[in-house]
């Protein structure tokens, strides 16, 4: 029994680490990409994948421990259901958000900042490939 829990713990930590990696990648994409569509692309894909991995890690943890750090098994069903629900909501929301945000915009009334003014001293192409990897792996 303890061996199973230990294996589950290792698996959960691995999944959480993968989740962290993808969330960090998404955040880097948000910070470093050159314009709005590419940023959206990084955020929508990498970040949701990250949330999915973190959710999966917590699901494994809940199945092994039953909710808490120290608790025994049992009572994990509700936790798993809600974690999955969080992820599904995030997927739904991101799909709609990305579409709405990426739709060609009329010039905003009185945008006080010019959209042409791009931040980021570094050139785009060097940073582009990194969050590209999660993006391509996301589609199963």
């Amino acid at each position, binding site marked *: 029994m303890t061996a199973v829990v230990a294996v589950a*713990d290792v698996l*959960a*930590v691995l999944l*959480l*680490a993968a*989740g*962290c990696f993808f*969330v*960090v990648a*998404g*955040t*880097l994409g*948000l*910070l470093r990409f050159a314009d*709005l569509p590419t*940023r*959206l692309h990084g*955020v929508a894909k990498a*970040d*949701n994948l*990250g*949330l999915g991995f*973190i*959710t999966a890690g*917590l699901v494994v*943890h*809940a199945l092994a421990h039953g*909710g*808490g*750090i120290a*608790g025994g098994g049992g009572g994990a069903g*509700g*936790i798993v259901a*809600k*974690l999955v*629900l*969080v992820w599904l*909501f*995030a997927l*739904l*929301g*991101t799909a*709609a*958000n*990305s579409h*709405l*945000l990426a*739709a*060609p*915009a*009329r010039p*905003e009334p009185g*945008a006080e*900042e*010019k*959209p042409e*003014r*791009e*931040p980021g001293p570094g050139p785009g192409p060097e940073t582009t490939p990194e969050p590209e990897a999660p993006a391509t792996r996301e589609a199963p």
Partner: protein
Amino acid sequence: MEIALHAVATVLLLCVLAGLWRAARGPSTRDRVTAFALLGTTGAALLVVLATLTQTAALRDAALVLVALATVVVVVVTRGTAER
């Protein structure tokens, strides 16, 4: 395990702080809202991690609420400016 969850929470918090940079910097409102959409997802991840860490089931509800209402905010912001 507890240490791992703490570490994950700290990393996610740093990601939220990084998102602040984009939200503050812009340049367009859409960029800011993109940052907020990211923070909704990251914040939800943070809350579910904390829910497991502190064994508080209600924080998973909070994550659900955050994700759902972040979507509402985006819908509100983009209305009237998006072409069909």
